[in-house]
């Protein structure tokens, strides 16, 4: 282009390149700054105050954190959340694996996978509502089935002993399809000749599953377990709709407790303190995850 100053210095060129780079990153950076970095800092700030939204926040130092340590409800919610994780993850993983292996072996049609993924496309709110109806102790369809098979009706979401399992089951219903899909993709990556070779050696289905499938699926397995683990700690929607933390506090998970404090009790400072503690815990889990994932690099290249 004639007339344009082409003869630039290295510094000018670099500056121009950097400028364009910054321009490209700028919108995302603004989003990051305002809606991730700033709120994180503010959450920590709020956690050091006593604030009910309606009055000015009052600085209380680490008071909220001290309260938290001796707050039985907090520890209870941590325990309940952990219980949820312990129900949810194995259930979802085992069922997902079973479903993946079955569809890999017996039915690879896309429609089948599309069908089992349908629950995942539906929101937690909707899933919780429909299951709430189906799990009603007196009027629910599930108890009608159970009665039909001679099993006495169960309380499910209404029973303190069963509510958490029921919530986990609803989550499992929603997520098993996705888990299965991820496993299925992992199974597809295992070359078929391995099975042929094993079969020539006289291996049965179970041996092949144990000796070939499972070890080679390990990276996907680790990924699925760890990501759903982090998601599980943040269970909220189903609880909010189906049990509201009850009955008898049996489903008062951490996020519900944070929600209660923030928006029901108007204890923003305390809610923020719990959030910060949760954040710290999740970072720990994530670091652990990185370790696990690295330790489980694929044996396939």
């Amino acid at each position, binding site marked *: 282009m004639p007339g344009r100053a082409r003869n630039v210095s290295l510094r000018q060129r670099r500056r121009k390149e950097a400028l364009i780079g910054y321009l490209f990153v700028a919108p995302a950076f603004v989003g990051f700054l305002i809606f991730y970095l700033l709120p994180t*800092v*503010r959450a920590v*700030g709020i956690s*050091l105050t006593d604030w*009910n*939204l*309606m*009055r000015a926040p009052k600085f209380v130092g680490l008071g909220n954190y001290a309260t938290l340590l001796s707050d039985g409800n907090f520890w209870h919610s941590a325990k309940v959340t952990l219980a949820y994780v312990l129900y949810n993850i194995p259930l979802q993983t085992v069922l997902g694996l079973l479903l993946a292996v079955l569809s890999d072996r017996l039915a690879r049609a896309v429609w089948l996978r599309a069908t089992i993924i349908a629950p995942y496309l539906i929101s937690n709110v909707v899933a919780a509502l429909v299951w*709430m*109806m189906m*799990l*009603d*102790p*007196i*009027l*629910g369809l599930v108890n009608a089935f159970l009665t039909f098979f001679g099993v*006495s*009706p169960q*309380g*499910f*979401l*209404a*029973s*303190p002993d069963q509510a958490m399992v029921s919530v986990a089951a609803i989550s499992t219903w929603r997520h098993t399809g996705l888990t299965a899909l991820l496993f299925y993709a992992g199974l597809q990556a295992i070359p078929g000749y391995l099975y042929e070779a094993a079969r020539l050696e006289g291996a049965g289905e179970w041996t092949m599953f144990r000796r070939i499938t499972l070890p080679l699926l390990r990276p996907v397995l680790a990924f699925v377990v760890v990501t759903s683990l982090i998601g599980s700690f943040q269970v909220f929607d189903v609880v909010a709709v*189906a*049990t509201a933390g*009850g*009955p*008898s*506090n049996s489903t008062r998970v951490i996020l519900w407790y944070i929600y*209660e404090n923030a*928006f*029901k*009790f*108007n204890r923003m400072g305390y809610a923020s303190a719990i959030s910060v503690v949760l954040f710290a815990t999740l970072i720990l889990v994530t670091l652990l995850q990185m370790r696990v994932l690295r330790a489980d690099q694929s044996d396939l290249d």
Partner: protein
Amino acid sequence: MKEYLMGKRHLTGVLATATALTTLGSSFAWAEDVTLNYAMWDANQAPVYRQCADKFEAENPGIKINIKQDSWDNYWTTLSTSFVAGTAPDVFVNHLSRFPEFLANGVMDDLTDRIAADKVEMKAYLPGLAESWNKDDRQYGLPKDWDTIALIYNKKMVADAGISEEELKNLTWNPKDGGSLEKIVARLSVDQNGKRGDETGFDKSKVSVYGWATNTVDGYGQTQWSFLAVSDGFKPIDKPWGKQYGYDSPALAETLTWIRDLALKKGFALSQEQTGRLNATAIFAAGKAAIVPDGSWNISSYRDTSKAEFGFAPLPQGPDGRRSMFNGLSDSIWSGSQHKDEAWKWVKYLGGSECQTIVGKSGVVFPARPEAAKAAEEAHKAKGLDVSAFVQLATPETTFPFPISDRASEISAILTTAIENVLLGKGDPATILKEANDQANGML
């Protein structure tokens, strides 16, 4: 931390400027109509109040009413956050459970002087309603409506059990043997073999119709247990704005023990574990329960969902008489409103005879003025429903107020859990209740 605070101060400054500009903008628009936002949670009432608003707008040119309805669960979250946001409605329907908190935070306008200036007659309301919105001789709301509890029964089931309506209207109850209530409830319970609860061989593990069902319990037990406990001498709180909850009272423990046993030991009532989030309304509509105590605000719910004919009976007579929780709502003005004068006009109109009568005639709720409440009763009668069971209890002698205290939400959560635990049979009622009560009182 210091930097953070400084940053925040800066931000606040920017926001203050922005707010000032917005305010400036809106004051230019002042010459035009004033639009008042009026918030409520009951969807049934919104169209009725629209009628009031239409009349009001006609009488007060220059003021427009915008009714915003939000569901109960979400109403309070939205409201308390909008106070901070400065976007709260000018007038909002207020509930006693929130009164202390709102008062402490100064979000309600003090109406005392306006009431005096305009000579609004507070005695025109049902006794007790205006008083509950009064604190230290300052009035923070004009009574809007009230509710009481009655028993809803399935007419066919009652007839099939050979129980007369007369019997139903004169039920007695005590925590020892349950009085005639327990007898009737037993008789109304039927197992899968058709055996009734008062017959030998009744299988409590295979009940097909329960004599008694309530909604899942909460800490106040408005429709589930409070009327029984109070009729046995229980006092939820020492006084309005009290500092002492009375949940450690033996009366409450024995009442809840009776309720627990009715379900768990005798099988005449739905237990907690059998009451899902589908409430007693659903159980009743499905023909699985014969009697359900419920509030007057839910009358239409039964009408919509129940195919079977139903009637209303008054609460049973306990050792201490018949007692229903009497919960009065009010209309309050937001202290941050830009149009307080207009808002007051609207509140005055809402509490006045004209609007309350319109509301009463619609039959969705019982208005705070006796003459309007009468209109409501007649409206129901016209539709074939005798709701006198609700109205006859609306006297100071037969009611008790909603317990008001600070930190109501948190305390409610504690009490709810305790009562759930008692009814689930998770331990000695007295011990559980004492513990919860101490915890609640410890927060005040």
